[in-house]
């Protein structure tokens, strides 16, 4: 069995080569840059100045706060809705593929294109959403142009766009559960609830862990949907700014790559910690 060593590395070789070249090297470079100041073409070492800068920058903290809130809210909610929908489709519905196709559609479009549409739907004056809310005599906030609503809007949009991927993956996992498990449970008189909690969920644990990891990582990297939703801006008054927005802005617009990379490093550490936490949690759940 020890000969596996060489073989394993051989199989991993293409991945490792590409990853080293196009992921690891740039990251190391980025890490180095976080200790440098100046523009991309003339960098000088400044030690921890960039870190000091971002820690004193309220904008950075707003970005981090928004990102964290977004991740904490949109990921579990999105996942819960996805699980619910996937389960309904899987368990209750005849025309599975019809619904599955439907729910997969958002994944097919570019966020940019669909963001435009959402901007219209969310529009405070004449958006479809507020039209609906008003006709139901519900409060109709200004989703897009009120800074206080920005994050809420981003979260809603984020949940909407996360459903597609989650549902498709979950459906795959659900199909992979041995149908015997359910027939046996049926035989023992298990109710729908029993089956869901005692069989489906435990069997889905690995998939949910996978999705959770993906979603959390994705949530921390949120950028495009904000960009699309607010027409290239991080919401009115930058109220919806996110970590990557901050990074991109510092890098491309302001032209201080060092600061951007320092922020990247901090973001990376936060994601690392969140993922670590999440895995710990899932392990606990998996064991029970």
């Amino acid at each position, binding site marked *: *069995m020890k000969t596996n060593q060489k073989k394993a590395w051989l199989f991993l070789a293409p991945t490792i080569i590409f990853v080293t070249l*196009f992921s690891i090297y*740039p990251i190391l470079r980025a890490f180095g840059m976080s200790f440098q100041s100046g523009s991309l073409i003339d960098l000088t070492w400044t030690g921890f100045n960039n870190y000091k800068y971002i820690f004193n920058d309220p904008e950075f903290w707003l970005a981090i706060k928004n990102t964290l809130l977004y991740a904490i809210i949109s990921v579990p909610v999105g996942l819960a809705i996805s699980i619910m929908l996937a389960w309904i489709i899987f368990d*209750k*519905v005849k025309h599975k593929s019809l619904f599955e196709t439907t729910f997969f559609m958002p994944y*097919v479009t570019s966020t*940019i294109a669909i963001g435009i549409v959402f901007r219209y739907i969310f529009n405070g004056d004449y958006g479809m959403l507020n039209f609906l809310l008003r006709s139901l005599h519900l409060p109709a906030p200004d989703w897009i142009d009120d800074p206080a609503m920005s994050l809420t809007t981003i979260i809603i949009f984020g949940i909407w766009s996360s*459903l597609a991927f989650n549902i498709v993956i979950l459906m795959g996992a659900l199909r992979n559960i041995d149908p015997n498990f359910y027939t046996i449970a049926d035989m023992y008189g298990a109710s729908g609830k029993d089956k869901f909690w005692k069989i489906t969920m435990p069997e889905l644990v690995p998939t949910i862990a*996978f999705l959770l990891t993906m979603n959390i990582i994705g949530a921390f990297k949120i950028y495009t949907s904000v960009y699309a939703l607010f027409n290239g801006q991080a919401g009115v008054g930058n109220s919806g700014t996110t970590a990557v927005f901050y990074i991109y802005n510092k890098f491309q617009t302001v032209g201080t790559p060092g600061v951007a990379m320092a922020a*990247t490093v901090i973001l990376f550490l936060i994601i690392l910690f969140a993922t670590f936490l999440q895995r710990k949690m899932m392990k606990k759940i998996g064991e029970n």
Partner: protein
Amino acid sequence: MKRIRLGVIFSYIILFIFAFITVFPFIYMILGGLMNFQETTSIPPTLIPHHFEWGNYAKVFARAPFARYFFNTVLTASITTLVSLFNSLLGAFAMVNLRFKGKGVVQMVMLSLLMVPGEAIIFTNYNTIAHMGLLNTYIGLVLPFLTSIFYMYYLQSYFGSISETIYKAAMIDGASDWDYIWKILVPMSKSGLFTVGLLSFISGWNSFLWPLLVTNEDTMRLLNNGLSAFASDAGSETQLQLAAATLTVVPILILYFIFRKQIIKGVVRNDLKG
């Protein structure tokens, strides 16, 4: 012999609400692509265009070489899909079925790499490609995406659900790992591979910033780059944007409809006993 119960009806209601929420933007996008400019910006909003402006599509095609974009996109998306699928397949296999020193480290590194926002490394990759002299080439367009940790990670979780005795049996039968991958793993994971393939193809299809960076000429650009052809520093032609968006989405949707069956069926139970 299932009776229709309240729960089922309730489920259907939820499903329909969400299905509507999901589909509505698409309907709006398609209809919007057939409106005239005034309709897209009118108050109250127009849903059904008064007159279908098919001419929008003509304008879209006139604005940017969409046919060429289309070709480029299909080409690069296919290449990245095939190669990255191949690489992730091998990688995921090694991670799942082989035992070797450093597996934990590899796993950790890979997972950490997933956490790095692409925006933070894209300029270095650009630099690398530039140094390789691959700017404005198809190779330059696809090179950094020929492997995907994400897909590898997904496949790992997929392969993990195939019973280990199947691998053991293959070993006993004298199959090399290569045999195992192609004769057993691939046929047994068809649906997983299709899913990954589709995801990969879609992300290739939707790539925007990278092709813009590494190519200089219109003839090398991809579909999504065409989307920005309708915005200027003074405003944007929404109806054309929507038409173009429709244009980029529809082929993928068709593709999905075609392969949906493959993705959905062909899910064989992995183990028969035990």
